[in-house]
């Protein structure tokens, strides 16, 4: 993984210092709340329902054991609400629960002391008081971490496929290109106050595992016949209120032109993107409304950058070589730890099947630790778990781990001979559920338990689905299914790309849930990226697990032998599924009776 140079280290320290200065001026009343807002967002600090949220960047998901230990320390020492704040927050959530229509789902209590893995490979903390924010940034800077541009209307933390450089179907390892782009985008003077946020993703393999179609800019690596590297450039994808798949504007952009071309795209967006309406401010709206005019404007700007400005950001071979030299195979040795695992045991075999993948290098495997487990919110790791992960990575994976966009944590350098011992260790930590890619490997945003944007809670639905589908025979029988859920239309839980999507909506202060069917993130399992379609009027929280059960029962009744859920859905069409979903709706009288019993 990338190792910070002296310049890089100094840069994040100065950034932390600058943020401290800004916070102090705000505390002295020299900056208004409104003036501080974009400054704290540009450092990853939101204000949520009850407390600030810190979003820490983990570029390309790559994280070291040292960094994991620092996150553990932050979770333990800083992610703590004052008792009266927690009591107030819980009472407010309880009142929200009581106000729900009819029967509802049990809501897990609010928790603290956790890092939360997000779909854009950031780590979030929910309870750090703002007066300790500067100290946390200093701590992070000490291990080459930061929250730079993890929020705000700027170029956000850049993501890649979690398997960059190690995938069996790798074309190019895109991490060096992504890192060069990340550095270029950091504190960019011209592009810090864009109309809206701007997200870039790279994918370097045959299979698109980075959801590039859903990004403002999606970059798919390619090799020309002569072996030279370039990128297919997609622009204008995004979820939110208007889900759109990015348009291909370049089939093959030579690698050294990457920054020049991105500059042309972002400059065009900065000049012409809408600023009058937050919901129409993303680049996707500009691309959609202007079509070819937008592409022509970008190409003209790119031409001028190259021919009039002298293309100062053309990437040099020397810089590519320098950055690439960080993304090498680390020194590897097998742990050779003893294990009592029976290699033929069904659980272990299932874990091998679902959680272990092939590796570009012989004798190595990648292992995904599942953060989809009963009793915990999706992607949540407490301080002890973060410490344990640091140790696991040290023992089994050259002290490196990777966050995945499905909110799990992967160990990228595991010796095949170490698999039984790793399985045993992961199981002891409760991280060996063999459910990667299956129904319960859900993507879920924190929703209305923490987020002030959310229209509805999401974690209690995740908990109910997790609880209902603990039978592994059943999960394996259902096969791979992408279940994605967002607590509001901002779509942080990627509901648009779920085979089954759940979207929280607000009606008169009450939580309701829309179900969508047939979305795809762009990976091989479900083909080209596409948004799901809403199936019928929304449901109450209590109905949602029943609706999912009804959808799955329909699938089992109608599928051909061996057919996957998404394939069956596409073959059969949505109608029988819609009917089944509607059939799971509880009559109002039943709901009231159930509510009485609670």
């Amino acid at each position, binding site marked *: 993984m990338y190792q910070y140079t002296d310049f890089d280290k100094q840069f994040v320290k100065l950034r932390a210092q600058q943020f401290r200065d800004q916070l102090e001026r705000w505390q002295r009343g020299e900056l208004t709340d409104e*003036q501080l807002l974009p400054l704290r967002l540009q450092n990853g600090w939101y204000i949520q329902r009850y407390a600030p949220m810190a979003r820490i960047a983990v570029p390309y998901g790559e994280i070291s054991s040292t960094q994991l230990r620092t996150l553990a320390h932050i979770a333990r020492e800083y992610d703590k609400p004052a008792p009266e704040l927690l009591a107030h927050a819980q009472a407010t959530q309880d009142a929200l629960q009581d106000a729900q229509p009819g029967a509802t789902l049990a809501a897990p209590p609010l928790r603290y002391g956790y890092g939360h893995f997000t779909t854009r490979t950031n780590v979030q903390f929910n309870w750090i008081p703002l007066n300790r924010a500067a100290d946390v940034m200093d701590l992070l800077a000490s291990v080459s971490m930061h929250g730079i541009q993890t929020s705000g209307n700027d170029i956000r933390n850049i993501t890649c496929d979690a398997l960059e450089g190690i995938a069996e179907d790798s074309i190019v390892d895109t991490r060096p290109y992504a890192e060069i782009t990340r550095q270029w985008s950091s504190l960019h003077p011209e592009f810090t106050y864009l109309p809206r946020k701007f997200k870039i993703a790279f994918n370097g393999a045959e299979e698109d595992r980075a959801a590039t179609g859903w990004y403002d800019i999606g970059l798919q690596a390619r090799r020309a016949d002569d072996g030279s590297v370039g990128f297919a450039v997609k622009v204008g994808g995004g979820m939110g209120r208007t889900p759109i798949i990015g348009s291909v504007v370049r089939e093959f952009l030579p690698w050294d032109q990457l920054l020049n071309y991105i500059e042309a795209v972002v400059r065009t967006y900065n000049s012409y993107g809408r600023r009058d309406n937050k919901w129409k401010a993303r680049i996707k709206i500009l691309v959609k409304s202007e079509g070819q005019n937008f592409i022509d404007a970008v190409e003209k700007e790119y031409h001028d950058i190259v021919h009039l400005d002298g293309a100062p950001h053309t990437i040099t071979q020397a810089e590519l070589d320098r950055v690439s030299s960080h993304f090498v195979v680390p020194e590897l040795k097998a742990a050779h730890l003893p294990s009592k695992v029976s290699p033929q045991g069904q659980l272990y075999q299932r874990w091998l099947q679902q959680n272990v993948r092939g590796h570009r290098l012989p004798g190595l495997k990648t292992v995904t630790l599942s953060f989809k487990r009963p009793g915990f919110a999706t992607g949540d790791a407490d301080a002890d778990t973060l410490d344990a992960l640091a140790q696991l990575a040290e023992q089994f994976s050259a002290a490196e781990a990777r966050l995945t966009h499905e909110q799990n944590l992967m160990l990228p350098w595991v010796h095949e001979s170490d698999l039984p011992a790793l399985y045993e260790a992961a199981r002891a930590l409760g991280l060996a559920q063999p459910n990667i890619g299956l129904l319960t490997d859900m993507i879920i945003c924190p929703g209305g338990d923490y987020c002030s944007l959310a229209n509805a809670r999401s974690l209690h639905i995740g908990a109910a689905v997790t609880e209902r589908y603990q039978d592994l025979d059943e999960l394996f029988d259902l096969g791979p299914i992408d279940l994605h859920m967002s607590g509001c239309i901002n779509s942080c839980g990627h509901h648009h790309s779920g085979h089954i999507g759940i979207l929280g909506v607000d009606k008169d202060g009450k939580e309701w849930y829309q179900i969508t069917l047939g979305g795809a993130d762009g990976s091989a399992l479900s083909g080209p990226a596409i948004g799901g379609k809403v199936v019928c009027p929304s449901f109450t929280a209590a109905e949602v697990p029943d609706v999912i059960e009804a959808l799955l029962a329909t699938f089992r009744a109608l599928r051909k032998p061996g057919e996957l859920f998404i394939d069956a859905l596409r073959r059969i069409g949505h109608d029988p599924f819609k009917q089944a979903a509607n059939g799971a709706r509880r009559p109002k009288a039943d709901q009231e009776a159930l509510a009485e019993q609670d």
Partner: protein
Amino acid sequence: MKIIATNALPKSADDQKTLQIGNDAELADLVASGALEGVQRVELQFPKFTDGRAYTQALLLRRRYRFAGDIRATGDVLIDQLVHMHRSGFTSAVLAPGVDAAAAERQFARFAAFYQGDVLEPRPLFAREAA
């Protein structure tokens, strides 16, 4: 960069030939029409400090249209955006009413260098280090 407190601004216009450019104006058209000829100062506007269009305008005026006069930031100009403005080609800024100019100065001392090229130093860090 010349930083001017609102109340320090001369009451009557100085003798600079000034052109005010709205942040939705087409620079290419303006330049083609000859509007910049003889102009000594261009004023670019920040209707809100979060509206970043003028950064692009300033950069293009300097880098592409070779404008050598003063480029002045006006409107909702606050302290924490001044370094971005300076790097994008602004040479003067009139602070929004009530903003303390003293706190502005130390923002310029913090970062000795940045990754990407800008108007002051067109080469990115990697090209500077290689030179």
